[in-house]
C-alpha cells in the first residue's frame, strides 16, 4: 500500500516537473510539433489522476465529524482564494499574448505561476470531490452511487471534449455536456441525509460553514471564469480547467443546498436529538434490566433516565409491595401504608429525584389519594396539566407546593398495577403525547426489571429452602436407627422411605433389659416439616419412657399424656409397640390407632389388633380405657410384620395394596429370613404401584423368631 502511494505521488510530481520543463522550453523556443499539445494534455490529466490515486490510497476515513471536515474544506478554499488573489495582485508581469487562438506566456514567471496555481486548484478540486463523494454516499440508497458515477462520467466527458479545442474556443458539444453535468450536480446535491443526524450544535456550525463555503466557492468560480486566472488555467490545460471548474461549481451548488437544508432542519434539531436520546436510553435500560440485580439501583436508573429524556424536574417511583419478602431490602422509612376504598397495600417510594418524600406527602398523601385510586381502578397514564389547579392533587390545599405539570404512569404486570411512575415539570402543560409515550416506555422497562428481580429473588429463596430441606432430611435419617441390634434368637430388618423430603414415619428398637427389647413403629398424621418435628418428639418420648415402663400399654398412656400437651389438636400420632422377650419368645403388644401387626405362624396368618386410639385424640381416662394389651407366644419360624399405612395404601390407579395382598405376601415369603421377607414385600409393593410415586411415607419392619439356636 505504501509503495503504491509513493509511486503515485512520485509519478505526479515527475509529470508536473516534466510539464513545467516542457513549458519553459516552449516559451523560449517556438516549436511546432504535431500533436504536442494533445500529448501534453494527456500528461497533465495523467498527473491529475496520479494525484487522485495518491489521495485515494491514503487513509480511509468514515464520516464521523462531518462538520469539522466541512470547516477544513472551507479553510482550504479560503487559503486558495487568498493565495491566488495575492499572487495575481502582487506579482507583476504575469501575462499572456493571444495568438491564433492559443495563449503564449510572456515570461518565465508566468509559466511557473501557472504550474503552481494549477497544482493548488487541482488539489482543492480533488479534496472537494472526495468530501462531496463521501457525503453523497452516506446512508446510500439504490441509485445513489449510480447518480454519482453519471456525474463523474459527464464531467470527464465535458473535459475530454475540450481536448481538441484551442484554449479560447468553445464547442457546442462541450456546452451541451456541461449543461447536462450541471443538471447531474443539482440532482446529486439533494443527497443531504447526513444533516439529519447532526446534533443541534453541529447543525448551527454546519449552517455557518456551508454559507461561508458557498460564498468562497462563488468567488473562486467567478475568478476561474474571468481575467488572468481564467487565462492561466486555460493556458495550462483546457480539460483540467474544465474538471477543476466543474468540481468547484459542484461544490458551490452542494454547499448552497446544504445551507438551505440545514436551515430547514434547524427547528427540528432539538426534537430529533430528543428522540435519539430516548432510543439510546431505552436501549441502555433494556440492557440494564437483564444485568442489574440490585433492585434499588435499578429504580434509581429508571427515574434518572426518565428525568433526562423528558426533561422533567422531578421524578419518583412507587412500588406496590407483594409479600413480606422484599421488606428487608427496603429502607424502612420509605414504606407507607396505603388504605383507600379501592386498594389497601404497602407502597415503597424509591428512586426519588429532586423531590423529597415530605413533598410527595403534600402532593399526594400516602395514606390515601384519589390520584392513586384512579390509577388502580383504571391503569393508564394520567397527565396533569396544572398541578395547582388539579383537584386530585394537594387535596388538603396546603401552601408551598410546586407549580407545573405532572404525568402519572402505572407499572402494569399481567393487568395488575405493581407500581406507579411519576414525573413533574415546572411548567404548566409540559407533557405532550410523546413525553407520555416515553415515560410509559420507561415504566414498561421498569416493570420488566422489577418482575425480573422478583423472580431471581424467588428462585434464590427456593434454593435456600431446598438446602434447608436437604439438611432436615439428613437430620431425620439420623433419628432412625443406623443399625439394628443383633440377637441369637431374633432376626430384625427394617426400611423407611419418606414420600417427600422429610416424613412423619418412625421406627426404633431399644434394648430394655438384658433379655427384653422394645419395638416401635409410628406414623404422625400429615406430612412434611410439622410431621417431622412430631416424629423427633416421639423419638425422645419413646427413648425415655420405654426404659421406665415395662408394660406397653402403660407406656402408650404416658406417651399420650406428654404428647397431648404439645400436639396440635388436628394432629395425632399412631403407634404400635411390642415388647419381646429374647429368651422365651413372648411378645406383648399394644396399639395406639396404628395399623395392626401381622403375625405369621406357619399357615396361621392373622392381624393382631388390640384396641387403642391414636395418641393425641383424647386424654386421660378415655384414652387409658381404650388401650389393651395382647400377648402371644412366638414359635420358631414365626415372623411379625410391622408397617405404616403407606404400605397398605400404596396405590395403583384407584386400587390400594390393602391388607389382603399383605397377607398373600407373608404367606409366599414366610420361609425366608427377615431381610428376605422385607425385600420381597417391598418389591411387591413397588411393582404394584409401579407407575406412581409414593404419596405417603412407607415403613416396614420384620421380626423373625429363630428360637433357641
Amino acid at each position, binding site marked *: 500500500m505504501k509503495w503504491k502511494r509513493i509511486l503515485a505521488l512520485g509519478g505526479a510530481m515527475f509529470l508536473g516537473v516534466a510539464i513545467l520543463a516542457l513549458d519553459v522550453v516552449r516559451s523560449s523556443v517556438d516549436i511546432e510539433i504535431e500533436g504536442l499539445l494533445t500529448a501534453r494534455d494527456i500528461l497533465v490529466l495523467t498527473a491529475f489522476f496520479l494525484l487522485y490515486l495518491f489521495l485515494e490510497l491514503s487513509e480511509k476515513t468514515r464520516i464521523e465529524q462531518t462538520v469539522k471536515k466541512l470547516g477544513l474544506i472551507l479553510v482550504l478554499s479560503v487559503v486558495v482564494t487568498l493565495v491566488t488573489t495575492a499572487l495575481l495582485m502582487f506579482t507583476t508581469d504575469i501575462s499572456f499574448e493571444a495568438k491564433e487562438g492559443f495563449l503564449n506566456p510572456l515570461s518565465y514567471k508566468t509559466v511557473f505561476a501557472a504550474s503552481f496555481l494549477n497544482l493548488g486548484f487541482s488539489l482543492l478540486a480533488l479534496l472537494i470531490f472526495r468530501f462531496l463523494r463521501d457525503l453523497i454516499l452516506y446512508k446510500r440508497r439504490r441509485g445513489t452511487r449510480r447518480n454519482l458515477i453519471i456525474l463523474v462520467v459527464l464531467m470527464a466527458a465535458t473535459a475530454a471534449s475540450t481536448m481538441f479545442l484551442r484554449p479560447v474556443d468553445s464547442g457546442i458539444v462541450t456546452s451541451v455536456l456541461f449543461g447536462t453535468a450541471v443538471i447531474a450536480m443539482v440532482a446529486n446535491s439533494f443527497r443531504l441525509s447526513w444533516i439529519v443526524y447532526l446534533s443541534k450544535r453541529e447543525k448551527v456550525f454546519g449552517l455557518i460553514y456551508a454559507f461561508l463555503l458557498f460564498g468562497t466557492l462563488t468567488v473562486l468560480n467567478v475568478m476561474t471564469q474571468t481575467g488572468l486566472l481564467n487565462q492561466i488555467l486555460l493556458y495550462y490545460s483546457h480539460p483540467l480547467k474544465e474538471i477543476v471548474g466543474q468540481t468547484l461549481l459542484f461544490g458551490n451548488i452542494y454547499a448552497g443546498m446544504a445551507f438551505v437544508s440545514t436551515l430547514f432542519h434547524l427547528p427540528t434539531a432539538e426534537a430529533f436529538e430528543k428522540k435519539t436520546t430516548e432510543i439510546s436510553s431505552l436501549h441502555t435500560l433494556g440492557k440494564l434490566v437483564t444485568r442489574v440485580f440490585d433492585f434499588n439501583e435499578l429504580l434509581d436508573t429508571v427515574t434518572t433516565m426518565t428525568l433526562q429524556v423528558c426533561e422533567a424536574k422531578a421524578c419518583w417511583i412507587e412500588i406496590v409491595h407483594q409479600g413480606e419478602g422484599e421488606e428487608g431490602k427496603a429502607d424502612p422509612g420509605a414504606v407507607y401504608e396505603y388504605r383507600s376504598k379501592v386498594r389497601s397495600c404497602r407502597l415503597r417510594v424509591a428512586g426519588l429525584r429532586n423531590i423529597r418524600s415530605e413533598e410527595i406527602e403534600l402532593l399526594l398523601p400516602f395514606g390515601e389519594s384519589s390520584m392513586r385510586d384512579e390509577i388502580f381502578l383504571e391503569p393508564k397514564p394520567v397527565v396533569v396539566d396544572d398541578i395547582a389547579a388539579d383537584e386530585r392533587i394537594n387535596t388538603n390545599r396546603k401552601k408551598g407546593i410546586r407549580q407545573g405539570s405532572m404525568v402519572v404512569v402505572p407499572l402494569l404486570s399481567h393487568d395488575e398495577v405493581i407500581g406507579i411512575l411519576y414525573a413533574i415539570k415546572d411548567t404548566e402543560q409540559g407533557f405532550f403525547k410523546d413525553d407520555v409515550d416515553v415515560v410509559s416506555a420507561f415504566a414498561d422497562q421498569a416493570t420488566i426489571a422489577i418482575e425480573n428481580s422478583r423472580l431471581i429473588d424467588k428462585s434464590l429463596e427456593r434454593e435456600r429452602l431446598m438446602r434447608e430441606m436437604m439438611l432436615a432430611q439428613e437430620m431425620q435419617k439420623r433419628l432412625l436407627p443406623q443399625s439394628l441390634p443383633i440377637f441369637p434368637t431374633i432376626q430384625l430388618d427394617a426400611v423407611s422411605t419418606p414420600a417427600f423430603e422429610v416424613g412423619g414415619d418412625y421406627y426404633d428398637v431399644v434394648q430394655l433389659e438384658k433379655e427384653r427389647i422394645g419395638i416401635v413403629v409410628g406414623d404422625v398424621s400429615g406430612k412434611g416439616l410439622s410431621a417431622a418435628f412430631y416424629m423427633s418428639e416421639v423419638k425422645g418420648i419413646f427413648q425415655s419412657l420405654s426404659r421406665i415402663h415395662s408394660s406397653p400399654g402403660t407406656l402408650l398412656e404416658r406417651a399420650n399424656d406428654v404428647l397431648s400437651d404439645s400436639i396440635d*389438636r388436628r394432629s*395425632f400420632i399412631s403407634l404400635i409397640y411390642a415388647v419381646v422377650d429374647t429368651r422365651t419368645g413372648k411378645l406383648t403388644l399394644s396399639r395406639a390407632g396404628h395399623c395392626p401387626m401381622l403375625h405369621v405362624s406357619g399357615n396361621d396368618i392373622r392381624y393382631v389388633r388390640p384396641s387403642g386410639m391414636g395418641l393425641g385424640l383424647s386424654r386421660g381416662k378415655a384414652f387409658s380405657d381404650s388401650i389393651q394389651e395382647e400377648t402371644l407366644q412366638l414359635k420358631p419360624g414365626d415372623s411379625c410384620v410391622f408397617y405404616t399405612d403407606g404400605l397398605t395404601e400404596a396405590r395403583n390407579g384407584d386400587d390400594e395394596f390393602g391388607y389382603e395382598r399383605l397377607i398373600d405376601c407373608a404367606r409366599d415369603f414366610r420361609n425366608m429370613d427377615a431381610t428376605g421377607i422385607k425385600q420381597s414385600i417391598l418389591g411387591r409393593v413397588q411393582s404394584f404401584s409401579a407407575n406412581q410415586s409414593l404419596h405417603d411415607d412407607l415403613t416396614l419392619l420384620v421380626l423373625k423368631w429363630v428360637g433357641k439356636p
Partner: protein
Amino acid sequence: MSEFNVQQREHGEISVLDLKGYLDAHTAPKLEDAFQDLLAAARFNIIVNCRDLSYISSAGLGVFMAFIEEVRKNEGDIKLTNMTPKVFNVFDLLGFPLLYDITNEEAEAIRKFTEKRK
C-alpha cells in the same frame, strides 16, 4: 387427582354435610371451610354423611378433630354416618368410634339428635 366435594343440606336444626370423593391433605381445607361456615352460623348439630366418600387420609381425620371440641362445648355433636367398610376401617383403626358417634344410617343419627332435644 380425584376430586372432593362437600354438599350441605338442612334438616331442621340439623345440618348434613355430604362428602364425596377423596379427602386428603389437599382437599381437607374444603371440609374445614364447610365446618367453619356451620360454626359461624351457630349450627352445632352436624351429621357428616360419608356414603360417597371413597378415601380419607390422616389429614382428613384431623379436620374432625379440629372442630369436635368446639361443637360439643356448644352442646352439639358431629355424627358420622353411612361409611363404606374401607373408610370405616380407617376411622376404626385410629379408635374414632370411641370418640365419635358413628351410625350406619343417616336417619338413625337424626333420630339421636331429636331424642336428645326432647
